[in-house]
Structures are given as C-alpha cells and as structure tokens.
C-alpha cells in the first residue's frame, strides 16, 4: 500500500511515498507522540545482573557435568610428529579425550588447538592435559607484518591458504586473488581517474599510518556447555548468534537442525568474536557424546587472547589531494593488514564512504603471519581506516591552510553528519581550540581533534516474533534473540509496549533460545534494526487480532473496533468503550496472538548511511609523553533511539573502547619465539576507571523510513571515530601529526623530538601547528610488533 511518510531529521524533513507491506504498520512519523520509545528505560535484567542471579552460559552447572580443557601448541609453527593420549585417558577423573590435530598436521600459531580432555573436576582436566605427550617438529615462522612481506619470509601457508581450526577462515574470495608469498591481493576498487584527480589538486599529501592488533577481550570467554539427551543436543553457549550456532553445530555433527537447541540467557559481551561453535564448541559436543555426560568447556583468559580472534593490524598509505579552496580531488589508499592465519583485513570503508571524492583508488592486501587469526571486531576495518583517513584529512587541511573542520564540512556529502559536526564543534568549543593549546606549564599542551563515522545497516528481513495478549491484559513477546549486554531484551519489551499501548511492566519477554521464533545474529549493528520492526509488526498484528476478537464479542463489524491510548472502543458508540484490561477479560482463555515475519526494507524511503562525529580534547605532557583524554563529545544517529539510556550506554562503551585502542591496547608477539608476551589483561592494557574521559553523548534522531521503527544500530559506529579524533587532538596539541596508534609515551616523545628538530633546523623557536612537514613516521618497520 502506498503511503506518504516524512523522512529526515530536525530542520530537514522531506516527504516520500513508500510501499508499505500488507500487515506492516507504516514507519513512525516524526510527530508521533511516543509513550516509552525514546525515553530512558533502565534495563529489565538490571536486578538479575546486580544481584548475581543472572545465569550466564559460563555459570551453567548440570548434574554429572564434566569440565573440559584444551591443549594448545606452544610453538608459532610446527608439524605434529606424534600425539599420544594414552596417559591422559588413564589420568584420574578423565572421562573423554579428543585429538584435534592429527600427526602430520601443520600448526600455524602459538595457541592453536591440539587436543582436549573432559574430567570430573577442572583440576583433573588440567592434570590430564599435562599427561598428553606431543612431539612437535618446529618449523620456521614469521610474526611481524613487514617481516612477513619480505621475499624469502617463511611461508605461513605453503599451499592453499585455509585454516581448519580456531575459526580462522580465509575469505572465499581469496581463491581468485593473487598470492605472493604471504601476501594475498590486492582487492582493488576505484572510481573516476585518481591520477587525473591528483593533477587537478593544488596540494597533495602522502603518508603512512600504522595501527596495532586489538583483541576483543569480552569478559565472558568463549565456550559452551553441551548436553546430549539421546540424539538431541542442547548447548548453553556464549554466542552472538544462537541460530547460526545451531545450524553450524548441526552441519558439523551431521544431525538435523531440529535436534539441536542453543540457549543464551545472559551473555558477557562479544564484540564480533563469538560466532559459531568454533573449535572449542565442537570439542565440547564431541567430548560430551563420548563421555555420555554433559561437558562444560570455557576458555581461560590466556586462551582467549591467543586464539579467539582480533582486530588486525594495518599499515595504510594514503595519498590525498585537494584544491586550495578545499575541494577533494583524489584519494588513494593502499593497505597491508596482518590477519594472522586469516584474511579480511581491509580498511577501506571510511575512505570509500565518508567524504565525497570523485577520484578514488583502493588496493587492499592481506598478509599472513604465524599469529592467531583475525576476525570481525566491532566495525571491522573502520576504526583503523578512520584513523588513517582523518589524519590525512588534517594533514591536507594544514597543507592548504584551511581549518580542518571547515575542510570536512566542505567535503561531507551527509546532511546528518554535517549537522553532527556543527553540534559537536559547538559543544567542544572548536573555535577556541587554538587559544586553549598552551597552559601555564610549558610542557603541558592541550589539543582538540575530530573524526567521522560511517556505518551501513538498516536491518534485514527474516526475523520472526510472536506476541500474545492474555486475558488479564498482559502481553508476552517471544523472540529468540541473544542479548550481548547491549540491552536487546529491554528494547524488545519497549517496542511491544509502545505498539500495544501498555505500560512496560505488563510486557514480558522471552529471548535467548533457538526454540523461540527466529531472531537475527548480533553482528553488524543489525540486531535492533532487524528485531525492532519485527516486534512492532507482531504487536501491531496482535493488536488488530484483539480488536477483531472484541468485535466478535460485541457483535459489531470486525473492523469497527479501535484500540488507542489504553482504551478499546467503537468510535461514536459509548456503549462499546472499555479500558484495555476490561476488554481483554472478554477474550477466550488462549488470548490472542500473532506471529509475524519482518517486512522488507523500504528501499524507496530515505536510504542513507548511519553517521557520527566525535571530538576529543586531550592534555599531553611533553616531558613524559603521557596523554590524557579529558573529554569526548560523541554526536551520533541511531535512527530513532528506542531506549535512550541504553543507546547512551552503547555510545559510552564504544568511545571507551576507542580511547583504549588509541592509547593502550596492543597485542605484542615476541619476534624470537612467535609467542604473545601479554596474553592477559594487565600487560595487555585496557582502559580502566582512571583512564576514561568525560563523555558527552548527543543523539540526532533520524527518521529514514527504511523500517517501521526507523531503527539502525549504534554498537559499531560509536567506536569508529574515537581513535581518529584523539590522534588528531594529540597532533593539534603537539603541532606534529601522529601517524601511529597506540599513542604511547614513546610515540609522543618521538613526535616532540621531531617537532624540536624541525624547529632547530628552521632556525626559529616557534612551536605550534606549523610543524607538520617533517612528521613522525611510524616507528617501523614496527620490528617486533605484530
């Protein structure tokens, strides 16, 4: 059905005609008087989580349950000569033993899985691991990104590049790409004519930017509890996709999907790394089968750091040109990413999609190393891509003598983000940023920087939900979603309560079970834009069913009953007008229910990117090199926020992970042994309470009409521009462009030294933002760094 809707954001609305699917409500209009949507709703599981009652998968205890552990390869590259499990089988308490690697198999990183055991207690499982005898043939290895690119470097994959363990899986596209030693690619894309664009430019800058490996470090580790009941398998998993987990388990174990059940009631974070059963999940299921008893297999922190994925490091070279009036003419990115034993390390999302540039060229290479495989992590490719792009934008703005924010506004095609830039600039005090640089202490300087975010998803069709309205007026939602900690459970309740016109306490929600109606994976920031419109559609249809049921009771025409603002009535007929609860009493005992499948996106509505802009204010100690982030202003859109409180929390979290990425986190591999030297959370430093800045979260509501709740996700865009903004703020403070993260004291001191050399060479003592020509190259070839 054709409907006219308004799309846009405050100050910039337009009318669009869209095709609304039968049985779907039209998208909420900007003038809609919401009751709950958009307010701050404390999450429904707050009590369970604050009292310790919440049972995470890692907390599940079953009668007769065994504890499993995994033996891992201590070498960066090795072939298994022999594997003797005999003594382990005879170790006290052991009930099942499993070989994961086979004699002759090559192992490609320190931490790769070799064997697993299940025993009556965790300590007995430890003892049994110690009883496993493995003979390894050590093989040559390489762990550094640059070292791996050299000719003659040890080959991570001698034949076809594919990994069979640790969830590492080189993109299937890899088959068509050139391979040169450990380097795969390039994946290339272009538009316009980049060389012609550079010829048109009045200024061109070219620089190389380096970023590190970041690990997800979710607090709950990977793993699951597996229980067989005859030929049926139930697992309690820490997973971002219970249906994906179900399907992958069924496929790997060659059993019907209908015989596998996956439960994730509460979950301790994921950040992109928790998809599919992976090696440990399949091991647990197989050990449980062999032992005839339930098995719990959860990794410890060290295993989590070594083998469960990471955000790949990257070395990005950007060449960028503009006319002197600030118009981008050409943009070129060449990136080498260290995927460990995996691929998919590209970073081109921001370069391709943030600023308007007619002439573009991108070449992305994956580099294999003997290190744990990379995997999707919160906005894959984007924080590293944004860091490089935004640094290059600042360098180019400087080269043409233009304010970096003005330069961005001139080239940003997104009206929403231009508004976000303006709001954020006002909040952070952009205009006075130069005046704030100097402090009373000559060694302490301050800086303000900016970065932009782009993201894509507006959700996908496929999810289903059932909404039941009971005889007592309460309602129930069934939707098999997992809640990683993002607040999905509460979001679902809010949407149903809004559509039904009920207070939140009358709505109960069942999630986290593959026996419930299909729900999407929590990935790509698609959960809310996929689920929320599904819930609204099911609630809308349940409400229509209620109207029809009441009409039958009242013996009035089926479509004459209206339900609004807690009343059920026939317009203009005072005899037929009841409060919601009284009307529901008329229902037959099963109540009424509707199961709905999410409608397609309205591609005829306002298709756009999700956007964000972040500003950072930092203080830098030139004597010690220490950086302190004082404040982040984060201006984002997540469509129309459903739960303002949880949205703010998500953005806080994205920013804090970005601060941590900008200043601290770094997986360090020892060049001599190929082993990770900081597989923990004290020397793999993560931002803590003393490191977090004040964060101003500002939301620009956007009605795009693409789905019926105008929802998009916020998990990923919120972490994209933080490191970029911080690096540019430090650069502003020092007057020298920072070209690598994490911005450790060593990086800052090198930048200070470079600035001083420049000053000495120029024969004048000015310090300030005029010092960018002789900047700090990444401390490369990053020798031992991974």
């Amino acid at each position: 059905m054709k409907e006219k809707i308004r799309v846009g954001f405050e100050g910039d609305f337009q009318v669009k005609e869209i095709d609304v699917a039968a049985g779907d409500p039209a998208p909420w209009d900007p003038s809609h008087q919401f009751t709950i949507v958009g307010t701050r709703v404390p999450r429904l599981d707050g009590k369970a989580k604050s009292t310790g009652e919440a049972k995470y998968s890692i907390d599940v205890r079953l009668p007769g349950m065994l504890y499993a552990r995994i033996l891992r390869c201590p070498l960066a590259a090795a072939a298994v000569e022999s594997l003797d499990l005999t003594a382990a089988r005879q170790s006290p308490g052991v009930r099942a033993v499993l070989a994961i690697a086979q004699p002759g198999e090559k192992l490609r990183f320190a931490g790769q899985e070799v064997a697993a055991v299940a025993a009556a207690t965790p300590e007995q499982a430890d003892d049994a691991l110690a009883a496993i005898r493995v003979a390894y043939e050590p093989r040559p290895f390489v762990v550094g990104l640059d070292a791996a690119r050299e000719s003659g470097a040890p080959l991570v994959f001698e034949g076809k590049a594919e990994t069979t363990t640790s969830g590492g899986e080189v993109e299937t596209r890899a088959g068509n790409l050139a391979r040169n030693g450990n380097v795969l690619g390039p994946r290339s894309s272009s538009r316009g004519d980049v060389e012609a664009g550079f010829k048109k430019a009045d200024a061109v800058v070219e620089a190389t930017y380096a970023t590190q490996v970041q690990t997800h470090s979710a607090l709950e580790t990977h793993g699951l509890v597996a229980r067989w009941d005859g030929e049926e398998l139930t697992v309690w998993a820490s997973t971002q996709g219970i249906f994906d987990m179900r399907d992958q388990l069924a496929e790997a174990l060659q059993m019907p999907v209908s015989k596998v059940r996956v439960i994730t009631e509460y979950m301790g974070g994921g950040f992109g790394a928790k998809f599919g059963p992976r090696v440990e999940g399949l091991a647990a299921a197989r050990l449980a089968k062999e032992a005839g008893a339930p098995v719990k297999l959860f990794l410890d922190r060290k295993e989590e750091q070594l083998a469960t994925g990471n955000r790949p490091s990257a070395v990005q070279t950007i060449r960028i040109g503009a006319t002197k009036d600030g118009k981008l003419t050409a943009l070129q990115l060449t990136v080498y990413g260290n995927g460990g034993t995996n691929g998919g390390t590209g970073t081109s999302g921001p370069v391709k999609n943030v600023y308007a540039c007619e002439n573009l060229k991108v070449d992305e290479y994956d580099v294999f190393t003997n290190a744990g495989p990379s995997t999707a992590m919160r906005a894959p490719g984007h924080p590293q891509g944004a860091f490089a792009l935004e640094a290059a934008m600042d360098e180019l703005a400087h080269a043409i003598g233009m304010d970096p924010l003005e330069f961005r506004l001139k080239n940003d095609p997104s009206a929403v983000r231009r508004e976000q830039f303006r709001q954020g600039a006002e909040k952070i005090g952009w205009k006075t940023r130069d005046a704030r640089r100097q402090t009373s202490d000559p060694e302490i300087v301050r800086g303000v920087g900016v970065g932009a975010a782009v993201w894509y998803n507006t959700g996908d069709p496929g999810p289903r939900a059932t909404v039941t309205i009971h005889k007592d007026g309460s309602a129930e939602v069934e939707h098999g979603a997992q809640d990683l900690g993002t607040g999905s459970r509460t979001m679902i309740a809010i949407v149903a309560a809004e559509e039904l016109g009920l207070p939140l306490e009358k709505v109960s929600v069942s999630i986290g079970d593959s026996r419930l109606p299909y729900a999407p994976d929590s990935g790509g920031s698609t959960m809310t834009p996929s689920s929320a419109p599904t819930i609204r559609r099911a609630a809308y249809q349940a409400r229509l069913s209620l109207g029809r049921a009441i009409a039958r009771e009242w013996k009035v025409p089926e479509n004459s009953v209206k339900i609004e603002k807690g009343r059920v009535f026939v317009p203009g007929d005072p005899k037929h007008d009841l409060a919601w609860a009284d009307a529901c009493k008329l229902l037959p005992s099963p109540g009424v229910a509707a199961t709905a499948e999410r409608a397609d996106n309205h591609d005829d509505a306002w298709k756009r990117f999700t956007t964000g802009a972040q500003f950072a204010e930092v203080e830098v100690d030139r004597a010690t090199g220490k950086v302190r982030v004082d404040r982040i202003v984060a201006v984002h859109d997540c469509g129309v926020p459903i739960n303002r409180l949880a949205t703010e929390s998500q953005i806080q979290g994205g920013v804090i992970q970005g601060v941590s990425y900008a200043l601290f986190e770094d997986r360090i591999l020892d060049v001599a042994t190929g082993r990770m030297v900081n597989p923990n959370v004290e020397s793999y430093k993560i931002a803590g309470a003393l490191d977090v800045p004040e964060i101003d979260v500002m939301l620009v509501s956007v009605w795009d009409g693409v789905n019926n709740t105008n929802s998009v996700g916020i998990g990923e865009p919120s972490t994209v521009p933080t490191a970029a903004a911080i690096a540019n703020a430090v650069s502003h403070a020092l007057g020298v462009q920072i070209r690598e993260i994490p911005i450790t004291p060593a990086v800052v001191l090198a930048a200070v030294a470079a600035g001083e050399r420049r000053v000495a060479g120029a024969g004048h003592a000015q310090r300030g933002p005029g010092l960018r020509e002789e900047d700090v190259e990444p401390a490369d070839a990053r020798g031992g760094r991974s």
Partner: protein
Amino acid sequence: MSDEPRGGFTRRDLVRGSLVGAIAAGVGGKAAAAGLESIGPGAAPLELTVNGTVHRLSVEPRVTLADALRDRIGLTGTKVVCGRGACGACTVVLDGRTVCSCLMLAQEASGKSITTIEGVAVQGRLTPLQEAFIAADALQCGFCTSGMILSCQALLDRNPKPDRQAIREAVAGNLCRCGTYNHVFDAVERAAGLKTAGNDTPHPASRIPDPASRFEDDPRVATAIREALDQEGMA
C-alpha cells in the same frame, strides 16, 4: 593454557610451602594443634561461611576460593575473568575486606566470613547502590557488575560521600569491557545522595512542535506534509 601450569606456579607447591601453617590453622583446631600437619594433594575437608551459611566441602588444596564458590557451592555471581587478580571480577568481601577470590585458595578462607554478590541484597531487597546501578545503567553485559558493586559498596562503607576521583580510584581495579565506567561513577554518586536522578528527558518527537512549519520557505514541501498529515488524521 596447557604448556605451563595455570597461574604460573603450582598451587600444590604453595600449599606445601609457606602457607601450610596458616591453612592448617584454618582447617580446624586439631590441625592447628599439630602445627605442621599438611593437607593435600588430594581433597581435604573444608568449611566455608558464605553469606551467613556454612558450606562443608571437600576440595583439593589447589582449588581457589573463586572456583569453590562457583563450581562447588554454585554461587556463580562471582565471576572469573583473568584468573590472576588483574580485573576485579571475582571480588568478594572477606572479614570486611574486599579480596580477589581467584588469588586465594579456598582452604585459606576457612573460618572467615565471606560475602558474595548474592549476599548483598537482604531478603530480595536491593541496596541503594544496587538500585542506583540499575537506574544509572551502570551495567551492560553485567559480567563485571558483581565486582563493581562490591568495590563501590566497600568505598561507601569507608567514605559515605566520595568525590569523583575517590570513586575512580575505588574501581581502578575493576575492569569493564562494555565501558560502563561513567555510569558507575554516576551510580555511586546517586547512592551517596550526591546526585539526584534527573535523566528523564522529553521524548525526541516533543521537540518538533509543528511538522510543517519549518518548511514554510518551501511551500510545496509544507503543503505536501500538511496533506499527508490530513490524510492520516494527524494534523
């Protein structure tokens, strides 16, 4: 990891060494009287007093207090994240002091009074701090929350009106990966009565008084909006 002992030392060695006296003293009067009697390496009896309830267990000396609470007693509100005292997720209160239960052997805790997160709310009634955590959304995935709450409660017990810096320092040993810190600080301030709830803002649509008015400079758009709204009966 399997290629070296968990935690970098063998707990068995530790038990046989310097802690023998202390542990033996904790196990019971008879052992204490004997002075040097050792326990292990097999399971040994143990009494743990947790949240006012006495639990009689039999665990190997190498079992940590965290593992005893979680795997043997079933009090899984205590979380283990790093296993080496770096993250605070396993925080419990032992004789009035917060400790990392992953760094302590269960046998060491014998005879002491242990409070876990499950013992904080009294008969289902949440404390003001727990209420404040919920109201301020100081929890996301919730995995750090048990430790956070116990650390913050310990702060409030010794300093009922902490400033922001004191709060930061009190949870400096509690790692949160979701990034709840600022909301944790808010929650403590609320619980201490230093900050009132004032977070409720009008819903987003209320900032848009007249949908069409801002398009008066483009009469076609303004008219189209009014027509669309009229059709929907929304004007």
